[in-house]
């Protein structure tokens, strides 16, 4: 049942002596919607960079029982690990349908590639419905609205059949309604997948997170439900400590009445 889970053991990333991620132990189970939060420079994005193979790391990063560290980016992707970036990166000159079709096709035979696409693959159809872009199938991705691009990216992860989804600030720049839609979308897709979200938007986190990990200076500071994390004195210390955050920001993270 729970074989598709992410297990990090002593994950460490250092750049020329600067340790960005410092011995992180983390496990995220299937069905979880885990938010990674923390002040700027806490190592959140670097952590998912390491798991997806973009930067090299030491320690272990197991997904579904396989260590991902040291594998090439496209090999990791083929093991069912998908990610998005802070800025939506879709193929702007290709249509929504083409974007999704490409995402669905990494395991196709070479012969298939030499032929024209005939019809719409079922997974692509489903994904377009899930992310609500069916009506825009033939629209070039470049002229989609910002939120739609992010949804398209999530749709690409779905057709890619990613079992582990790592999203880097998926709601940055979205309107309040778009954020709500995205949150509900994430809740739907996390049912049979493992989802990790790096986010700065604390309202969004409090509304939709199932569990939260707080990173600080490359280390895990606290972990638990939203309420547990908010009540953790160490988290309060980091967010209230001098020079880190303003009182308002801290209030948003920790809830009212701090």
């Amino acid at each position, binding site marked *: 049942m729970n074989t598709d889970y992410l297990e990090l053991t002593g994950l460490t990333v250092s750049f020329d002596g600067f340790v960005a991620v410092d011995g992180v132990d983390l496990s995220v189970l299937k069905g979880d919607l885990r938010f990674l939060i923390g002040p700027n420079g806490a190592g959140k994005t670097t952590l998912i960079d390491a798991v997806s193979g973009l930067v090299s790391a030491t320690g272990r990063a197991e997904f579904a029982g396989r260590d991902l560290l040291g594998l090439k*980016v*496209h090999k990791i*992707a083929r093991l069912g690990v998908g990610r998005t970036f802070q800025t939506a990166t879709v*193929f702007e000159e290709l249509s929504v349908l083409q974007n999704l079709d490409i995402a669905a096709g990494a395991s196709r035979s070479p012969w298939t*590639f030499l032929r024209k696409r005939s019809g719409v693959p079922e997974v692509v159809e489903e994904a377009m419905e899930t992310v*609500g*872009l069916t009506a825009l199938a033939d629209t070039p991705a470049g002229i989609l609205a910002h939120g739609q691009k992010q949804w398209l990216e999530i749709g690409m992860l779905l057709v890619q059949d990613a079992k582990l989804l790592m999203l880097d600030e998926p709601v940055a720049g979205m309107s309040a309604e778009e954020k709500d*839609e995205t949150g509900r979308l994430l809740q739907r897709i996390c049912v049979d997948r493992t989802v990790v979200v790096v986010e700065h938007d604390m309202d969004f986190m409090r509304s939709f997170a199932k569990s939260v990990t707080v990173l600080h200076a490359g280390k895990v500071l606290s972990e638990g439900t939203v309420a547990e994390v908010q009540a953790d004195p160490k988290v309060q210390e980091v967010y209230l400590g001098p020079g880190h955050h303003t009182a308002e920001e801290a209030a948003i993270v920790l809830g009212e009445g701090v």
Partner: protein
Amino acid sequence: MTSLLRSRYAVGIGFLVAAVLLFAVAPALLTTFRLGLLGKYLCYAMVAVGIGLAWGRGGMLTLGQGVFFGIGAYLMAMHLKLADAGAGGVPDFMALISSDGVPGWWEPFRSGVVTIIAILVLPTLLAALLGLATFRRRVRGAYFAILSQALAAAFAILLIGNPVATGGSTGLNNFKGFFGFSLRDPANRQMLYFIAAGALLIMVLVARQLMVSRFGELLVACRDGEERVRFLGYDPATIKTVAFAVAGSMAGIGGALFVPIVGIISPNDVGVVPSIGLLIGVAIGGRTTLAGPVLGAIAVAWAETSLSEQFPSGWTYVQGLMFMLVVAFLPGGLASLVKRRRKPKAAPVDAVPTPEKAPA
């Protein structure tokens, strides 16, 4: 006309028109000499089809297609020289500067079959190896352009530095026969033109299939977001290498047909300057389209001949000016003018559908 251009038969109709022009109209209207010139332009156009694929669709700015063109051309030229010399004979230029006879690595090309296979395989293979070596290391953009240009320069220097084996800076010329047919006979020269026209049409069909296929979509995706493609589970190096190898193959075939049609191949036809010249036609025509590179290459080559007949030294300036104008004002090439008329406006995205409320 506009509705015709827009219809889904547009490509087929365009292709038929091109075939009629090449196979019926041109031979009827042009003298043997002019038809030979057109044949030469068609050889350039073959290289251009490949550049359109590699650069226009794949984003690989290759300034060194002269290398693959040159390999195809020199292979063909070596065979023609050996065939002219007769069984066991020594080509005339070699006998003039050396008494060592034919170098060992020339010998296989006495055989026409070996030569044809080599023309089809060697440029493709070299492009594939080069592609794997560079794209695996994520060499791209300007670095790839510089690397390919350096390769063209090195290739020309290598040819000049070995006059005994390659004819040096004079190159190889004065071919008398082509697989048993005399090159003096106008009928045979016309047949060569038909072969070139047929080869070009086939290449356009191949390029068209690659563009509309899933591979073509993936190639554009690689051009616009190589990292993203990698995160989808593809190795972009493989995809780009395939496109680059196809481009190399087309250049090689173009070079091989260039030799009997033009009657000379020298380092001046394969070095840095001609390599960039090939690119200019593609840029002017419209590198991302199917017909743009072909028409651009033919038009530029034709303009070069006509202008050089009138003002022998003026061409370089005109070429440079055209390139600058296109890059500055029409980055999509002349083809983008046609497209602009066809698609008046990109449809605005006003209806903003939201994700479904219920799970799908």
